[in-house]
């Protein structure tokens, strides 16, 4: 593959192929940071890929008490799905099972969005007619009595129909440790970009997939071209100095946000250099025919 070089890091002349998704967001607050983080962590659990989960979710950022609607410590989480209906269903289930249950939390809409989905409205009936509606500045909130006081939840949350899911970077290095250093640096840099999440564990996925399989009925299987242990026996995409490949998948509320996130990630990997970090950066695509959003790495270089 033709390559460019930045500070000794080889960058493939390739592109990441991403897909349209529907996305929504919540601001979760709690009496202290610990419980706001706990709520956000549980709420965004088992939400890595829509291939097997109801949505792709992750923490966008932490919010100080000054930045939250109720002046308590908070966390902003984003969730993406194939359709507005799918996102609504996922959020109703997750708010009901993870946030209603979590001590001290309150839930607010994080995005204005193109349309509203009923999340709090689905929670109110848990109050068994003891719930109290409060309307403030054009928004409705439900106060649902629970055993530690009240669960406050905004009746509707905003949803953005034209989000982007599947922006990605393939980080390639000599061994697991150095590749992980570079990937972690990239994930941290992407974390600073607002309105974007990296839904996989710690923001990193090691099981990149290709379309199709030798087995019947499996739509995706391991991306053997990027498996270092198969370098000799497959049509490998890896150079002799690559012993580990890690992928970062990025979902964002707009095309520009995903591009910014990828740019931030590349910058962090290049800044670390090939000696301590990654030797090469690539991107995953399906030939450009499946997803309408293409992020060419050469356009995102520092």
């Amino acid at each position, binding site marked *: 593959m033709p390559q460019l070089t930045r500070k000794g890091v080889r960058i493939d002349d390739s592109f990441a192929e991403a897909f349209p998704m529907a996305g929504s967001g919540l601001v979760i607050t709690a009496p202290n940071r610990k419980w706001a983080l706990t709520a956000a962590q549980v709420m965004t659990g088992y939400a890595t890929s829509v291939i097997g989960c109801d949505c792709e979710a992750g923490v966008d950022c932490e919010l100080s008490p000054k930045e939250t*609607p*109720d002046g308590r410590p908070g966390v902003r989480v984003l969730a993406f799905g194939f359709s507005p209906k799918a996102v609504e269903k996922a959020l109703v289930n997750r708010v009901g099972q993870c946030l209603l249950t979590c001590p001290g939390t309150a839930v607010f809409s994080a995005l204005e969005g193109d349309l509203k989905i009923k999340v709090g409205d689905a929670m109110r009936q848990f109050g068994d007619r*003891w719930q109290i509606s*409060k*309307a*403030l500045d054009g928004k409705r909130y439900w*106060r649902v009595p629970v055993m530690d*006081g*009240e669960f*406050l939840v905004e009746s509707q949350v905003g949803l953005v129909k034209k989000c982007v899911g599947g922006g990605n970077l393939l980080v390639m290095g000599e061994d697991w440790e150095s590749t992980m250093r570079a990937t972690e640096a990239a994930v941290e840099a992407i974390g600073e970009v607002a309105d974007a999440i990296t839904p996989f564990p710690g923001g990193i996925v090691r099981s990149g997939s290709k379309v199709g399989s030798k087995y019947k009925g499996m739509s995706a299987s391991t991306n053997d071209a990027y498996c270092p242990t198969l370098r000799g026996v497959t049509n490998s995409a890896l150079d002799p100095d690559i012993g580990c490949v890690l992928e970062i998948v990025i979902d964002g509320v707009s095309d520009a946000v995903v591009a910014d996130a990828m740019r931030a990630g590349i910058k962090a990997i290049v800044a670390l250099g090939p000696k301590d970090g990654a030797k090469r950066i690539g991107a995953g695509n399906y030939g450009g025919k499946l997803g309408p959003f293409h992020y060419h790495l050469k356009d995102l270089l520092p």
Partner: protein
Amino acid sequence: MKPLLFALRHAPTQRLDLSALTPDRLAGRALKEIEAIEIGTTKVVVKVGDVFKLRSGDPRALHFEGGSENFDFVGAKLLPGFSIRVEGDVGFGLARNAKGGEITVAGDAGAHAASGMSGGTVYIEGDAGDFLCGPLAGEIAGMSGGRVVVRGNVGARAGDRLRRGVVIIEGDAGADFGARAIAGTIILNGKAEGRIGYLNKRASLVLAHARDFGPTYVDCGAHNFAFAKLYARALAQDSRRAARTLSQKLQRFAGDTAVYGKGEILTPA
């Protein structure tokens, strides 16, 4: 652009119906036309030009220089996006059935201020009369949305049959504060006379001063309410005193159990 100015020539000798003088109704009209609008309420004809000296300006914002307790229905049926400021007092029915916009009264307001209001914001820098936000006789609900801030005291039956919206009273309230309230929120930073929240169905009455609320309000203990903190933050710009009251741990008295009983009185614990 400066606002359209109505400078008071002399104190009116009869009650004036100023409901015709709202920005949306004056848009596109010449000063001469506006001066010819009849605003009198007796057999003696009174026109705008008799009472006010007009100065042209942006009709989206009206400015009354000088007020009177005879100024009735100022800002009636006001729509979103417009504003009215009165440098003085106003009479009956300020912001009656207003749907939006912003009204500021530098002086006092008469009875039934914000009656039937469904949106917008009303600031009364002085006192307000009886039936603040209350319905007229025969109407089912009082104010059904928006925000009212009174810096001074209010008369009897403030928040009568309040349906929705937020009312902040920084001074004291007369008898039967929050009577028959259907829903909504009233914050009172001063003291209230007589009964409080009589036949309150679902409204939240937040009082800065605790007292006995009678046997039909039942104590539910002191709690930190997330909703109160949300309100404290949202209302801080309009009233820091109200925000301070809401930021505290609040004792909840549920009632009025003589009726629906889903309302509440909250006071600092």
